């Protein structure tokens, strides 16, 4: 299964395809056992992520957000206790201005009179607090509001790691895919039918040469006989051929 197909499978599992696309990919999975297996793996991964209590920020998914919002509803904005330090510079300037104004002699004949000061309402911080995704004022009309970084995960093998089943922990992988709010990744057409070499075919063997490797040939000794010599017939093919070897 190539990377393009696997991308489609991952997006299907995380609910990022349209209905038509999803149907197409599911049909593909129905025809190919490898694809179906990969789809099961990704759906299991999504299920595992859903069960995790603390989702790391870099693994945030739209699916999880939506599920959380549906389950818990939008939480009331928390009461902010303590000083919002991001506004410290503004407060300092405001305080300095107020002091300057207050220290000026009054020109209005009102000793100690109050001077109307325009109070700018400092807008409350409505932006998303990174460590509290549930308070995000998510605009559910935007299907791809957030710029997400979905990392393909791979279990980093420990020296003594041995297993007979896919490992459970999800850790940072080397491959990063970015799904932007404005669009989608390039459309892919999966390679459905990798070519295979029929070992006993009388047709000429296909020759594919890896551009980065020197050509090496192997000999295929077939069951059919060479009419000229009576011995088994042999052909030479490049090692990159789709030859099955038993080991």
């Amino acid at each position: 299964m190539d990377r393009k197909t696997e991308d489609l499978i991952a997006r299907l599992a995380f609910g990022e395809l349209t209905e038509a696309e999803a149907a197409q990919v599911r049909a593909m999975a129905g025809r190919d056992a490898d694809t179906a297996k990969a789809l099961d793996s990704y759906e299991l991964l999504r299920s595992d992520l859903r069960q995790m209590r603390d989702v790391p920020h870099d693994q945030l998914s739209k699916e999880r957000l939506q599920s959380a919002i549906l389950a818990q509803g939008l939480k009331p904005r928390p009461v902010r206790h303590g000083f919002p330090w991001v506004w410290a510079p503004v407060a300092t300037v405001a305080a300095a201005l107020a002091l300057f104004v207050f220290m000026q002699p009054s020109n209005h004949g009102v000793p100690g009179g109050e001077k109307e000061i325009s109070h700018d309402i400092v807008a409350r911080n409505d932006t998303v607090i990174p460590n509290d995704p549930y308070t995000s004022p998510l605009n559910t009309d935007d299907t791809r509001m957030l710029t997400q970084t979905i990392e393909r995960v791979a279990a980093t093998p420990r020296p003594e790691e041995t297993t007979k089943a896919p490992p459970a922990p999800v850790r940072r992988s080397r491959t990063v895919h970015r799904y932007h709010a404005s669009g989608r990744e390039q459309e892919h057409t999966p390679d459905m039918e990798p070519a295979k070499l029929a070992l006993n075919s009388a047709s000429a063997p296909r020759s594919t040469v890896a551009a980065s490797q020197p050509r090496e040939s192997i000999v295929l000794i077939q069951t059919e006989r060479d009419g000229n010599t009576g011995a088994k017939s042999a052909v030479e093919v490049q090692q990159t051929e789709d030859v099955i070897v038993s080991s």
Partner: protein
Amino acid sequence: MLSSALSALIVLGGAANGVAPQAVEKDRAAWSRVVPSVASILRGNQDLGSAALVSSKGLFLTHLGAVYGDRIRARLSNGEIVEMTLKASDEPTQLAVLQASDWIKTAKPLAPVDGELKPGDRVLAVRSNAIMRAQFVTGTRYGVVAPSQRLMQLSEISFESPSNQVDGALVVTPDGRLVGFLNATLRANTENALSPTAPDAMAEFRSVQPMAKAVGGGGGGARKFGPGDMTVAYTTAPGVLQRAVDSLVRGKGIERPSIGVDVKNAEGGGALIDSVTPGSEADQAGLQAGDIVIEIDGVKISKQVDLAKAVMNQEIGSSLRMKVKRGRWTLTVPVKVGSKSQKAPLRPESAI
């Protein structure tokens, strides 16, 4: 048989054909040394192939193509007809060992060559009464043998295209060492080694000094041949032959290191597991079809042949650490190396 073999040598050599008399004499002498240790397998009056004495206890090594049943007939070099019983066989190498009811007691068992052959060394290929001078090209070719699909190391030899059948021809060195039996010949079409599409084989062929034409043609001096006149053939490699003989003469099949997978090249590199034999070592270790093996004991695996070579060089009972990609996971899996022997199925026995 000896007289007919000498006649063949006369046809083969001769100063009148442009071959130096010393060369003919050498071949004659070589064949004379070997003849007492060689028997012809018979079915009725048909000569099916040659068998070479490999043990002082009357064990003969032959090509499986000549074995048509558990009990067969053979003719010794002195003309005596003897009975031979099949003791052991191996399908990938197409070798079999027969126990003769009688043999020439003074005959010397032929020992397999032990890697001392060099490209260009002269060898003799014997089939029935035809003796062909051949050239050893290399002992480091790799082949996949159907139907077992086992990877096997092969020797490649070349000789002038024969006018008769050469399947199972016995190949020996001039000093009487056993090279093997002809298993297969390269198909003579444009996809084969004799064409530009297989430049490595062509380069190897051209690096070997061409043989002098030995039959017909007339004229003086050695002649050189182009590829179109030559046949490329394969036998088991010397090391494989030695191990085969050692196992078969003990009446045992050849045990090969095996983990129980069928693999092919993976896109992007690695060996893709096509199937896992149920109950095999690979199955017990948890390997699955679709897994891509990328490393074995720290050695990178870039294609299926790399994996097969790595396994075939292991000791039976040892353990491999295989790094495997499964989807987006990378696993390190210890796999024990088991063994597998493949006794060859026989053709139905026909009346002797």
